[in-house]
C-alpha cells in the first residue's frame, strides 16, 4: 500500500466511511446511504480542501483514533469533541496538520452523536455503485471500521482553507422537526394526527443510521389491515404497529408496508442525526411548498 494511507488505531463504537451516498438506485432496493449530517461532512471537506463528494469518517458517540502514514491535514466537525495529536490538545472545527505517523485522537462527543473527520485527499476505498458509503441496512460499501483497518487516501486536490474559527450549528437540546402531513395521515385517527403534531416525543436509544426511533404517545390507526408495500423517501415518518413514529434516515429501506404519517423537511434531518437518546422531539406540521 502507498504511504497515502490511514491506520485505524481505535475504531470506536461505530465509525463508517461516508460520502454523498448512492441515490438513484432505489428502484433496485438500494438505500441512498451517505453521511447523516451532510452539512457537517461538507464543511470538514471544505476545511481540508477536498471536493464535496470526498469520503469522510462518521463516528458515533465515542470518536476514534487514527494514524496517517504520511503528513495530512484533517478537520473534525459535526458533534463537538476533544481532539488531540500525539497527546496534545488540537482544535476542533478547523484544519489541523498531522505529521506522518502521529496519533490523531477524536474524543467522545461532548454533545451530539456523530463527529466527522475529513482527511486531505479523502478516503479512497473502492466505490460501490458510485459511492464509498457504508450502508448498514443492505451491507453495501466498506464494513464499519475495526481496530487495525488501513484505509487508502487520495492525493490532496487543493490547499486547506485558511480560517481561524468556523461557526457550526450546536446539536439540538430540543429537536423540532418541520413535517408535511401525508401521504398516509388518513390511516390514523384525527386524535392521533393531533397528538403527533402537538405532543412531545423523545429520541429512543434504538435509533441508528436507518431511522430515528421515538418514544412517546402511541399513534392509533383509523384503518386496520395491511398497506401494500410502497416507496419510501428520506425523512418519511413511518408508524409501525407499536404506534411509535420512526423518522427514516439515510440507510432507510426503499419500500415499506407501514403507513407514513408525515415527511420531515430535508433541512431538519442533520439535526436529527445529532440528537442524543432522550432528546425531546416535536413534529411541527407546515404546509407543503
Amino acid at each position: 500500500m502507498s504511504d497515502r494511507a490511514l491506520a485505524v488505531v481505535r475504531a470506536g463504537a461505530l465509525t463508517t466511511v461516508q460520502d454523498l451516498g448512492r441515490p438513484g438506485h432505489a428502484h433496485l432496493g438500494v438505500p441512498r446511504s451517505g453521511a447523516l449530517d451532510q452539512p457537517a461532512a461538507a464543511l470538514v471537506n471544505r476545511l481540508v480542501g477536498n471536493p464535496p463528494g470526498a469520503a469522510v469518517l462518521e463516528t458515533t458517540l465515542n470518536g476514534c483514533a487514527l494514524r496517517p502514514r504520511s503528513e495530512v491535514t484533517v478537520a473534525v466537525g459535526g458533534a463537538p469533541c476533544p481532539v488531540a495529536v500525539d497527546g496534545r490538545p488540537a482544535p476542533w472545527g478547523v484544519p489541523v496538520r498531522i505529521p506522518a505517523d502521529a496519533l490523531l485522537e477524536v474524543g467522545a462527543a461532548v454533545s451530539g452523536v456523530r463527529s466527522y473527520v475529513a482527511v486531505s485527499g479523502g478516503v479512497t476505498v473502492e466505490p460501490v455503485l458510485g459511492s464509498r458509503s457504508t450502508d448498514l441496512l443492505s451491507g453495501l460499501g466498506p464494513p464499519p471500521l475495526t481496530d487495525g483497518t488501513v484505509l487508502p487516501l487520495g492525493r490532496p486536490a487543493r490547499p486547506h482553507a485558511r480560517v481561524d474559527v468556523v461557526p457550526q450549528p450546536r446539536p439540538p437540546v430540543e429537536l423540532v422537526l418541520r413535517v408535511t402531513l401525508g401521504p398516509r395521515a388518513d390511516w390514523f385517527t384525527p386524535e392521533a394526527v393531533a397528538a403527533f403534531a402537538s405532543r412531545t416525543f423523545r429520541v429512543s436509544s434504538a435509533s441508528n443510521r436507518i431511522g430515528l426511533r421515538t418514544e412517546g404517545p402511541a399513534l392509533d390507526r383509523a384503518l386496520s389491515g395491511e398497506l401494500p408495500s410502497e416507496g419510501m423517501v428520506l425523512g418519511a415518518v413511518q408508524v409501525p404497529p407499536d404506534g411509535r413514529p420512526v423518522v427514516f434516515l439515510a440507510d432507510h429501506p426503499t419500500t415499506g408496508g407501514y403507513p407514513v404519517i408525515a415527511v420531515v423537511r430535508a433541512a431538519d434531518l442533520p439535526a436529527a442525526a445529532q440528537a442524543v437518546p432522550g432528546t425531546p422531539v416535536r413534529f411541527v406540521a407546515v404546509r407543503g411548498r
Partner: protein
Amino acid sequence: MRVLPVGDEALLVEVSSGEAAQALHAELLRRRAAGTLTVREIVPAARTVLLDGLRDPSGLADRLVTWKIPPVPPRAEDAIEIPVRYDGPDLPDVAALWGVPVEEVPRIHAAADFRVAFCGFAPGFGYLTGLPDRYDVPRRATPRTTVPAGSVALAGPYTGVYPRSSPGGWQLIGTTDSVLWDHARVPAALLTPGARVRFVPQEFVPQEFVPQESVPQEFLPQESVPQERP
C-alpha cells in the same frame, strides 16, 4: 389514479391494481427516456409508483391525472431464465394450500410467465407476479431466522429469490444458483422492475435410478447435499 404529495419534492401515485402500477411505471420510464420528465428516483411498488427528486411536484401532479396510460407493453426482449431445483422445505405446505399433489407445484410454477413488479427489501430482491390469483399463499406464521441465499419463495401474489442469506417469512419452494446481486457486475441486479422472468426446473434424476456405486459424488443430484451458506 390518486396523486399524493410526499414531503416537498416527491409524489406517490396510487392506482387500482398491480397491473396499472406496472403500466404507469413503464409510461414514466418512457417519458424520462424521452426527456420530458426530470426525476431522481422512480420507485414502483405493489399499487403505487413513487417519484422522488422532483422540481415541481404540484405542477406534475396536475398534469399526471390527465395522462393516458397505455397498458403494459409486451416486452420485446427474451425472459430472464432462472434455473431452479424445486427442493424447498415448504413444498408440501404450498401443495396443500394449492390443493394439488407436491409434484404438481414445480410444474405450475415453472409454467408461469413472470414479470418483476418491483424491487425492495434488499438490493436485487424482486417481487415477481405471474401466478394466477388462486395460487396466492400467506407468509409463514413464524418467520425463519435464516433463509439461505438463492431460495425461491412465495408470499401473497409474489415469487421472490433471496439475493443473500437473511431472515424471512416466505414459503420456500426451491433454490437457484443464479446470482441475483453482484455489485461488481454491470448491471449489479439480475432483476429490474418490468423485466420478464421464467423459472426453469433443473434436470432432476430420481435417486433410485442412479447406480450409486458407479457415479462419482459430484454427479449425484444436488438435493442430496445439504446446503451450507453464509
